[in-house]
């Protein structure tokens, strides 16, 4: 953003001030994440940078908290990780199937009461999580599904579907329906048409919706707090407990792993988004 030569001084000053402000905001957004990395390699138990770390003394760094995370006695992280992955995987599968099918119906121009139905389907994303948590807890307690994996998975399907509905509907908005008509006229039945024609074309949207659903489930703590028993503990629950009781460096080791995971998901989501835009012909 080079300024033209004729720019007056006061606008020049204003421009640099604006760039400075932007830098500050970007710093504010991203810097907190990077505090966690070095501290998770701290050799000491305190959550501050020790003098050794400031001097970059190799002895001040260690992997002990990572070891503690994996091998530690009374270690809750193994079970929590297993549960988190099981719950998130099944919740994602459920959300993707229900959400994609619903999005297909919603994008049809014949759909009656589109506005109100869309608003209903999106509502779990808008309603505060604490209220969703209370409501779903009442349902699960009645259905006898409290403190079971099934209950938590169903709850996370509720929370995950809005994301799938939104992303798939967005992908379908640029979808050329004449290709499905062409398939039908050539004798393909609707299921075959969907699997062979529609699905491959909307796949980027489906996968990115699925990623949202996965992250939502993987990161969700409010509803699980109401539903989970000791057996159903998840990574967010363990982090929540740890953060409430005492901030131990082991949590930072876990947090570092989670940041790495979210970076991977971000990269995947970005690549998918670009691919989807290319397919839909919205080149940038």
């Amino acid at each position: 953003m080079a300024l033209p030569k004729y720019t007056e001084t006061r606008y020049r000053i204003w421009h640099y001030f604006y760039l400075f402000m932007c830098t500050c905001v970007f710093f504010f957004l991203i810097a907190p994440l990077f505090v966690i990395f070095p501290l998770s390699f701290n050799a000491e138990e305190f959550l501050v940078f020790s003098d050794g770390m400031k001097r970059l003394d190799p002895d001040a760094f260690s992997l002990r908290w990572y070891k503690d995370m994996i091998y530690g006695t009374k270690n809750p992280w193994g079970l929590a990780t297993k549960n988190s992955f099981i719950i998130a995987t099944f919740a994602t599968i459920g959300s993707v199937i229900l959400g994609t099918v619903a999005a297909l119906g919603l994008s049809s121009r014949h759909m009656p009461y589109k506005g109100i139905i869309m608003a209903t389907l999106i509502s779990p994303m808008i309603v505060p999580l604490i209220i969703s948590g209370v409501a779903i807890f009442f349902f699960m307690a009645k259905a006898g599904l409290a403190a079971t994996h099934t209950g938590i998975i169903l709850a996370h399907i509720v929370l995950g579907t809005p994301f799938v509905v939104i992303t798939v509907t967005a992908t379908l908005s640029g979808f050329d329906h004449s290709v499905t008509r062409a398939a039908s006229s050539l004798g393909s039945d609707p299921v075959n048409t969907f699997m062979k024609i529609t699905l491959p074309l909307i796949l980027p949207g489906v996968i990115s919706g699925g990623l949202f659903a996965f992250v939502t489930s993987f990161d969700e703590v409010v509803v699980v707090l109401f539903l989970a028993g000791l057996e159903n503990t998840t990574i967010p629950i363990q982090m929540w407990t740890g953060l409430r009781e005492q901030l131990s460096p082991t949590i930072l080791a876990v947090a570092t792993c989670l940041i790495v995971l979210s970076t991977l998901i971000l990269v995947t989501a970005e690549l998918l988004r670009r691919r989807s835009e290319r397919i839909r012909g919205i080149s940038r």
Partner: protein
Amino acid sequence: MSSETKQILTTDGTPLEVSLKKAEKKNKIKAFLLVAPLLLFLIITYIFPIGEMLFRSVDDRMVTNMLPKTFKAMEKWDGKELPSEEVFEAFYLDYKFLVEEKTFGKLATQLNYEKNGFKSILKKLKRKMKKFEQGNYKEQIMNVHKRWANVEYWRAIKRRAPDITYSKYLKAMDMFKNEEGKISQVSEDRRVHRILWLRTLEVAFFVTILCFLMAYPIAHLLATLPMKYSNLLMICVLLPFWTSLLVRTASWMILLQQQGIVNDFFVWIGLVGDENRPEMMYNKTGTYVAMTQILLPFMVLPLYSVMKTISPSLMRAGKSLGGTPFVAFWKVYFPLTIPGIGAGCLLVFILAIGYYITPALVGGASGTLISNQIAFHMKSTLDWSFASAMGLMLLTGVLVIYWIYNKLVGVDNIKLG
């Protein structure tokens, strides 16, 4: 008859119009059937339970069912003076039954919500009741504790007679129905809920403003920079967006603690002395800082997607027509970004008003919001009907904003990533 007025028929002889309508209807049903599984699933597991919250928040049959004889006997009582022997006897019989069933504890809890001090006198009554003699229960009960001879306590019992109560909603507004059945406010030092509602609104409002002030310049920068730079900077927005909420809250807990980096920095630049480092966590400051950073991406993304569509030639045109850059910005660019501002502000406000995790971890006592109170009553006091009442009040507020959002922006225009 001329050929124009003749109906056009399809091959099987039905009029085309009818046939078309039939096909349209079939398509409608087809589309609806695709949405039906999810809709049904949500109605059963989500919408219906929210409706149940409404029922639970006003349902008061528990006490009614526990003291059936008492309420029957109380029907004739005018509530001015102590009730008659008949009421005392009915209460004795009801309570004896509850003690035998071992469910008297629930009654004690419920009545204690109505008036403090019930728990102890009910316990005392339970102990003394074993030695009660037949007849003249009024005197015997009144001898157990002097509060039993206080008409206020009997009025409190009578207030729980109806099946439906709005007391939980009144309680959430720090009001109650007094002895004469009038709605009045609780004493000033006990108005905790109103403070929480106001604080929730205040925090949501200021977090929205702060997010807007910070998001506007960077969204503008992202939208105007060449692609290769803006893609890189976009990561700064998207990485926090994808990162676990708890991880981000944890990083703020590290940064804001008294020996933390932010305080170190303040000491280093000489803003504060090393001895009196300010408390920045476990109060409202912590809530503000952490929530602003966490919700910032939700403001940047809608603003960015609107700014991206504004052609830069508009600003150039404004300037070439004699406007200074500020005038051109204010008269041309800013009005065009208003849809994005509306979308972003409403989204952030909706999310902020129901925030739970971050205030609970960094908010301390002075930085917690109404959500934390709901969770407290769900998990600690187990007063689920009160939690439901507060939840529904919050939900009503959110739905109003959601409705406005839907009117202004349209839910199908929500963009992710």
